[in-house]
């Protein structure tokens, strides 16, 4: 047994995390199955819009992984990760909108007797994009919107940089617990309010739209585009899962969980708690950015409401319902709750007639979700992931079993661990 415990520190990742293999297998099977059933490529059982819903769900699962890493493992209840998600969406959305508008403008100007100048094209694009907020010039933040590689880099760089600055200030001042949550929420709110303004340079409350149309791929039907994004999302989720598993396994994960449980003690062991928190905060912000960049082209539209604090609160609820501190828990919780949510709010759930009142799920779903969150917090803090513990305990019920105390009838180890 002693040997096992020690060797546990250096066995390969797959062996240390059996859930990793199971997860990747399930994800691969799911991806193939959806492809085979999808409209356009497969048998046509699943509509294009549902493929998009599934693809978006995978992106939400990816940002939930980031949330689990930062909250479930490190104990930082961030209410700002959906802001990083939104920034990722805006970054890619700017290029999508610019490039597609550019094609349209070039086409229409090509009819003119004289070939258009660079300025004419640029003005035309700006007019098209910003006419809706009464402007006709490109704001400074659009300087690189024509460049796909640059905007792709911004998908991770902008959330990373924002998280770095914010995290450095917050962690250095040793803001923890609920105060940190409030700070992150304030950051999210400020960002969202700023983006609501017309002169923010990102089209105010109109947001960016038409993102589902990929520039240069007008001939490709949405049914194929949706499958491509679905695959990309599945791949990103798989890579994200691998990355998170690598981070939380081994000694780094051990330090993170130690920080979550008693950060002062970790300091006295000589670890710079602030540096660890900052690294996790920045990495997870970048993961969130990538997830957002894959999500919004499938959603087609992004506006500042998506960044509002409520989105980040939903994220925390998903992770809590799935089970914190276990990566698959975050994925299960997110997939379960967000799909259920689209079922209930999509008008497909049958109304319940109580005689004196009719429960219409479109309105009542949030209440049901709120109640389940309270119930999970109170009665099942391990969330859905706790069910997997039950199965595992049934398989190997007795890890060891000496009495804890010297007296007969003292608690046995197995009882104490509960």
């Amino acid at each position, binding site marked *: *047994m*002693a040997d*096992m*415990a*020690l*060797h*546990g*520190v*250096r066995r390969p990742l797959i062996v240390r995390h059996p859930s990793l293999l199971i997860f990747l297998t399930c994800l691969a099977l799911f991806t193939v199955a959806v492809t085979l059933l999808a409209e356009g490529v497969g048998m046509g059982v699943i509509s294009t819009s549902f493929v998009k819903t599934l693809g978006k769900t995978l992106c939400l699962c990816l940002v939930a992984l980031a949330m689990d890493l930062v909250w479930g493992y490190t104990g930082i209840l961030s209410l700002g990760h959906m802001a990083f998600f939104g920034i990722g969406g805006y970054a890619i959305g700017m290029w999508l909108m610019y490039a597609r508008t550019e094609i349209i403008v070039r086409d229409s100007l090509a009819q003119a007797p004289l070939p258009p100048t660079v300025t004419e094209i640029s003005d035309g694009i700006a007019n098209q994009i910003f006419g809706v907020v009464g402007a006709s010039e490109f704001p400074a933040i659009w300087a690189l919107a024509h460049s796909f590689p640059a905007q792709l880099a911004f998908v991770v760089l902008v959330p990373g940089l924002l998280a770095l600055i914010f995290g450095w200030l917050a962690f250095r001042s040793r803001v923890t617990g609920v105060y940190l949550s409030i700070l992150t929420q304030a950051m999210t709110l400020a960002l969202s309010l700023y983006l609501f303004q017309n002169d923010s340079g990102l089209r105010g409350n109109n947001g960016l739209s038409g993102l589902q149309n990929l520039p240069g791929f007008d001939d490709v039907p949405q049914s194929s585009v949706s499958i491509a994004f679905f695959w990309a999302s599945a791949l990103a989720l798989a890579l994200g899962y691998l990355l998170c598993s690598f*981070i939380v396994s*081994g*000694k*780094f994960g*051990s*330090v993170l*969980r*130690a920080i979550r*449980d*008693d950060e*002062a*003690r970790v*300091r*006295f*062991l*000589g*670890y*710079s*708690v602030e*540096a*660890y928190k900052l*690294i996790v905060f920045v990495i997870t912000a970048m993961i969130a950015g990538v997830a957002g960049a894959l999500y919004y082209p499938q959603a087609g539209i992004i506006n500042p409401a998506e960044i509002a604090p409520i989105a980040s609160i939903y994220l925390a609820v998903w992770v809590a319902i799935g089970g914190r501190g276990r990566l698959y828990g975050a994925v299960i919780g997110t997939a379960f709750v967000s799909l259920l949510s689209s079922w209930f709010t999509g008008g497909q759930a049958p109304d319940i007639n109580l005689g004196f009142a009719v429960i219409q799920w479109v309105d009542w779903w949030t209440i049901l979700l709120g109640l389940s969150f309270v119930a999970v917090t109170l009665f099942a803090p391990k969330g859905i992931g706790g069910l997997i513990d039950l199965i595992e305990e049934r398989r190997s019920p007795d890890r*060891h079993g000496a009495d*804890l*105390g010297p007296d007969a009838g003292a608690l046995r*180890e197995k009882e*104490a*661990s509960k």
Partner: protein
Amino acid sequence: MSMLLEVDGVSVSFDGFKAINNLTFQIGEAEMRAVIGPNGAGKTTFMDIVTGKTRPDEGKVIWGEKSQNLLAMTEAQIAQAGIGRKFQRPTVFENQTVAENLMLALKNARGPFSVLRFKAAAQDREKVAELADQIGLLGALARKSGELSHGQKQWLEIGMLLAQDPQLLLVDEPAAGMTPDEREHTTEILVEAAKTRAVVVVEHDMEFVRRLNCRVTVLHEGSVLAEGSLDHVTSDERVIEVYLGR
């Protein structure tokens, strides 16, 4: 003998209450020292100051050969410089196994990037097994430390302290809640440790202090009241008055 730690004229007050009042304290490189004193004498605050948890209002704290100023360092830097601390109530990471706890404490690079790349080498695993054996937890390496008994947690924490391989150990009430046998073993571990490094033990229990057989510093109202052998300080009139309760 050159001094490892020099605390010079340190004072700190909390809301007007002087927890430490012009305290001066020195300890050499391989020395055992017991610190005793009534409740509120400033024993724990003294440890807080040395480990960087509390910043004093005035005074100096100088460490090691290079005469580093501890007051300018963070808790983590002080720990890396070679000062280890055991808290009054055992604080181990209950959600992690005994092996993980010891591996966390083991003297290795502490930076995030080296920890991310860290793979336990054979010598690390040997060292963990050796420490576990020393604290009587070799059979419990794979167990979650939350399952351990109170005494075992105390030992695990002592084991983690030794794993850090510090030059100075600050130990707050190591024998609290232990059976007589466990106390005996704890004494042995501490006496053994003091052969190669400095050990400061804060303790209430006079029997335990007697067994440590070392110099004793008596604190009272935040400053040193007396210093010397246990017999010397217990015969001091003022010590008898304030501490032994007459």
